[in-house]
């Protein structure tokens, strides 16, 4: 019996060491499994977060900045007059537009034209145009249009046409007007426009509409048989939504 018990007793340190080793291994295996589990959990969470972000990115409207460093954005204005029409351009354009390619009807935003950027080729005509009777650019520095609602939205390929209603402000007078708009969404075209310096999407806005100068108090003294009451406006704008 002694011998029988001697062996285990004699090997007590061995068993203790073995027991400790087994315990350590179990702990390590547990920790390993726990670590493995947590890594897998982290991976799953990351994947879900990425998916959520992607869905959110796809669902969220993109914000397009219309301050164009290339100077392409322009608003052309035209009024009929006896000798030749008063025809000029404004290119001091800024503003932002929120556009969701999946929901073009949710279009919102504001376009601002710097009044002093209005240019006509005749210097005297330009001086009159900027003057107090006409646009009074010293006191009314901005011409703006802010979108309030969108109707009759039709999308064909990259093009969307709609009737956009908004608050149009000119010479300090704000009126609600509805204008026809054509939007062209150009995904991933910003790189082509910036020689690869920036990546992102472009939104092109085209619109042609008519306003009456009498509605905005633009030189009411000028008889309409000399200078037409109607001002034809043509907007050609391109906004960029860079991706970081």
């Amino acid at each position, binding site marked *: 019996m002694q011998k029988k018990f001697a062996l285990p007793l004699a090997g007590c340190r061995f068993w203790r060491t073995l027991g400790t080793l087994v315990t350590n291994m179990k702990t390590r295996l547990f920790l390993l499994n726990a670590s493995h589990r947590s890594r897998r959990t982290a991976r799953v969470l990351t994947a879900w977060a990425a998916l959520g972000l992607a869905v959110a990115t796809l669902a969220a409207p993109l914000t397009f900045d219309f301050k164009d460093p290339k*100077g392409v954005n322009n608003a052309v204005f035209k009024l009929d007059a006896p000798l030749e029409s008063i025809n000029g351009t404004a290119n001091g354009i800024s503003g932002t537009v929120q556009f969701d390619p999946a929901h073009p009807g949710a279009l919102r935003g504001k376009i601002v034209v710097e009044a002093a950027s209005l240019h006509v080729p005749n210097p005297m005509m330009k001086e009159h145009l900027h003057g107090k009777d006409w646009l009074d650019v010293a006191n009314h520095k901005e011409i703006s249009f802010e979108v309030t609602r969108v109707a009759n939205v039709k999308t064909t390929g990259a093009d969307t046409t709609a009737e956009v209603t908004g608050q149009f402000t000119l010479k300090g007078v704000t009126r609600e007007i509805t204008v026809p708009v054509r939007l062209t969404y150009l995904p991933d075209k910003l790189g082509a426009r910036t020689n690869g310096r920036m990546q992102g999407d472009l939104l092109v806005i085209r619109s042609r509409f008519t306003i009456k100068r009498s509605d905005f108090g633009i030189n009411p003294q000028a008889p309409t048989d000399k200078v037409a009451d109607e001002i034809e406006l043509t907007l050609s704008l391109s906004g960029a939504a860079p991706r970081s």
Partner: protein
Amino acid sequence: MKRAGLFLRRAAVVLAGLTLLVWLGGGAHRGWTQTSVPVEKTDEVTGLTYREYQPRFRPGVDFLGAGLLAAAVFAGVGWTLDRHPGLR
């Protein structure tokens, strides 16, 4: 002093001729005089058309009218000086 009238009439002819030449050379523009000329361009990526103004003098009918009016005044004064020697 008879030469003054002759000089003015000759000056009127030269002025009228120069005005007409400059106006025709500038493209016989039938609108107002321009000091910048719009050049239509197209952005390749967006397809938008836009104008760039290049500084250039383009005489219009106001330039032509002013030049011809000045020539007419010169000619008139010259003719009057010739017809009424007492005014000299």
